């Protein structure tokens, strides 16, 4: 009898032994990260008593981990906060989204608009203290254009630079590609066509230099440890904890290091936005990059810490232009006019988003005049025009929706998109008298179906890669890989091609507007709104900048003592 009790006891003992082993594993990990835990405690203190501490340290929550932070490779929007602060290219943008010199001190553009000559600032250094010169840019370009690198933005180079595509395809040597360091501080890009928006493209992280030495020493592991991740921007990485946080510190070797006031930024992954919100409200973090959509209206009323920042982006619905009855422009226009975008934004999204009546978002301006100023609304007014929509549908042969096949409205699984889609379906039903069937799939499946044309009307959107209208136009060019609408119009294609090479920015706007007029006359999409993004930032943090292209800069940020 006692023997059995001993057995039970031994079971419990062994269980607790197992446990202590696991616990030991865990504590070992803690020991390794001891210094950073101490740092976090220190920053907790400033959160509670900001006025007592002159420490320039902030904690920012992000709701997703990037798939990588190699500026040459990733196109992941979650990488933006790291790349914007750790890497700087030849040019960068200021708080007004104007292009300003970055590592380049100045540049010259040849008369034919095809040769860009950059002069680098003197004495540039990497974050490890070694010299940075024009050759580093050449190395970076060669790396991007090597297929094995799998650079997701390779098109941003191969579309414009002479022989870049040919090198990628293995047809020419790299020496023939139009990137050249003519001396230590001079870098020349030679382009296929005059490309007036090349400087905008050039501000993307894919053009940032990367350090050859660390990549050759560490291979694809170079982005995974603070020592190996050599940067050239205002910040460098001092701590990385997988799935948990990445801590940046001021890069003393940055050319403008004197102006960088923030000593440390901890990007903490908090994948649940509601948790981030309560952590922000309790002062545990200084910034919540993502705010639960449902809380935005309440926060707007209650706090000054909520910032709504218009993005250079358009949320639209793709129409499959190749299948009946959507191959009829009257049907497509009727769908466009049947929607009350204002009601969707005010009641469903409850946001500051702007009703859209065209593809290109406002936000790009030349001499103070926005691209979208004076643009036609293409009869798409924000409240919709039900009478006209009905008339158009009747003209297409479906009076009061009679005989119209059930409209398949699909979207990718997302709570907010679901609400919008349901509202749209109701409007189509009420205003056009047609039946609507809603369906959703997770993104990986959804996007494959869209590309294959297995849809009628499908939720989609475009966030600009760079701040120029030309980022939007390829989406409907008949030969472009990005065109998933099965729409093709030669007049539009050639108008886009023509406007691409116009060097004068003001004339460029005129030409691009003409191209957009051609596009919108066909109503190949349902533009819905130009979106904004929300974030919460503690009022004591000043000087930060989130650009319309989602770059989150802290190089001019500082913490203001409240007394």
């Amino acid at each position, binding site marked *: 009898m006692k023997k059995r009790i001993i057995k039970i006891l031994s079971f419990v003992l062994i269980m607790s032994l197992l446990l202590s082993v*696991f*616990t030991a594993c865990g504590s070992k990990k803690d020991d390794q990260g001891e210094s950073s835990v101490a740092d976090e405690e220190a920053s907790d203190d400033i959160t509670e008593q900001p006025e007592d501490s002159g420490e320039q340290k902030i904690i920012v929550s992000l709701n997703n981990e990037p798939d990588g932070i190699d500026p040459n490779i990733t196109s992941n929007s979650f990488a933006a906060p790291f790349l914007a602060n750790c890497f700087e290219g030849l040019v960068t943008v200021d708080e007004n989204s104007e292009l300003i010199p970055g590592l380049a001190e100045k540049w010259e553009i040849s008369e034919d608009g095809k040769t860009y000559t950059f002069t680098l600032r003197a004495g540039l250094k990497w974050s490890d203290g070694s010299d940075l010169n024009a050759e580093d840019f050449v190395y970076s370009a060669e790396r991007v254009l090597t297929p094995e690198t799998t650079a997701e933005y390779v098109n941003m180079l191969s579309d414009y630079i002479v022989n870049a595509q040919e090198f990628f395809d293995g047809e020419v040597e790299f020496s023939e590609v139009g990137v050249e360091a003519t001396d230590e501080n001079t870098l020349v890009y030679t382009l296929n066509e005059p490309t007036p928006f090349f400087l905008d493209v050039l501000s993307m992280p894919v053009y940032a230099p990367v350090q050859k030495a660390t990549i050759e020493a560490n291979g694809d592991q170079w982005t995974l440890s603070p020592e190996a991740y050599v940067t050239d921007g205002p910040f460098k990485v001092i701590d990385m904890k997988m799935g948990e946080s990445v801590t940046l510190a001021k890069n003393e070797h940055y050319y403008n290091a004197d102006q960088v006031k923030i000593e440390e930024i901890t990007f903490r992954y908090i994948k649940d936005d509601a948790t981030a919100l309560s952590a922000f409200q309790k002062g545990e973090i200084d910034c919540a990059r993502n705010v639960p959509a449902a809380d935005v209206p309440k926060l707007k009323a209650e706090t000054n810490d909520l910032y709504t920042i218009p993005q250079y982006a358009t949320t639209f619905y793709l129409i499959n232009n190749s299948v009946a009855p959507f191959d009829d422009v009257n049907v497509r226009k009727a769908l466009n006019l049947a929607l009350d975008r204002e009601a969707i934004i005010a009641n469903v999204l409850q946001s500051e988003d702007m009703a859209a009546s065209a593809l290109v978002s406002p936000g790009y301006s030349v001499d103070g005049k926005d691209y979208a100023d004076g643009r036609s609304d293409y009869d798409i007014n924000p409240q919709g025009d039900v009478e006209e929509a009905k008339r158009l549908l009747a003209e297409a042969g479906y009076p009061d929706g009679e005989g119209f096949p059930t409209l398949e409205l699909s979207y990718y699984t997302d709570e907010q998109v679901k609400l919008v889609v349901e509202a749209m379906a109701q409007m189509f039903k009420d205003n056009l008298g047609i039946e609507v069937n809603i369906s959703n799939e997770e993104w990986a499946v959804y996007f494959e179906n869209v590309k294959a044309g297995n849809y009628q009307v499908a939720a989609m959107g475009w966030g600009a890669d760079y701040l120029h209208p030309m980022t939007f136009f390829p989406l409907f060019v008949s030969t472009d890989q990005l065109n998933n609408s099965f729409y093709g119009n030669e007049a539009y294609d050639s108008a886009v091609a023509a406007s691409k090479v116009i060097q004068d920015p003001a004339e460029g706007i005129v030409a691009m507007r003409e191209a957009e007029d051609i596009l919108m006359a066909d109503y190949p999409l349902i533009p819905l709104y130009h979106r904004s993004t929300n974030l919460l930032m503690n009022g004591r943090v000043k000087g930060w900048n989130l650009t319309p292209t989602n770059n989150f800069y802290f190089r001019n940020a500082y913490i203001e003592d409240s007394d």
Partner: protein
Amino acid sequence: MLKFAGKRVGMMIISLFIIILITFIMMHAVPGGPFTRERELPEKVEKALNEKYKLDDSLPEQFFDYIKGLVRFDLGPSFKYQGITVNDFIENGFPISAKLGGVTLVFILLSAIPLGIWSALKNGRWQDGAIMLIATLGVTIPSFIVATLLLYLFSYQLNIFPTYGLESWQSYVLPVLALGGYSMAFIARLMRSSLLEVMGQDYIRTARSKGLSETQVVVKHGLRNALIPVITILGPTVANLLTGSFVIEKIFAIPGMGVYFVDSVGQRDYTAIMGITVFYATFLLVMTFIVDLFYLMIDPRIKLD
């Protein structure tokens, strides 16, 4: 005993192989590939990626390659996270998940078993009613609701505990309650019903009539048998707790393994799906095996051959 153990290990390897095969087939049967990113990749880049990760090989070849890696404990590179291997996920995430799970397990054992016993001994009285009411709530309310309520009340409103992470002992309190709530309630109910059943047996009456004190009857005769169902459930419970919970890790921003397990499926990160499944399956099989061994030791009536 040794023969039994050898046989079981053999069975485990076969089960594991079947699990790997089924996961592999199902994973590739689901539409959507690993390189469908938020932004469409240029075709040539996708081609280069397929080459890099050998997705152009035939499925049997890919499967064979995977098994070859697996026997060397190489779970392969993640298809999503550049430069990161699936081994990295487990090496980084498992200790964190296991630490939280371990603390939770201790909490469950120390609370559920005494509560269940107490409830059984006070059968029909108010103590029993109160404990069972809480236990029923614990079993029926999903953990994400428990977690959200706890966060709102104890972190946001009362400001007693931190909101996220596992940096201090205080930060363990809420995740442990949310993670362990269900198992605690379940085991307390199981303990109660099992003890009640045992206490109605003839041999308990015999023990009582021998003149043993009630404590001796319960501890020596009742508990030992009543614990068997509880031990049965402990195998999968331990595996579940230690390998991490998606919901709890997400809500409390704990960088464990649970989040990767679920995210990898949505992202079609093939190697991560495989690797984490294999890890979890192995863990579960081993735990079940250990539990079976304990049956043998505790109850001589149980024969496992």
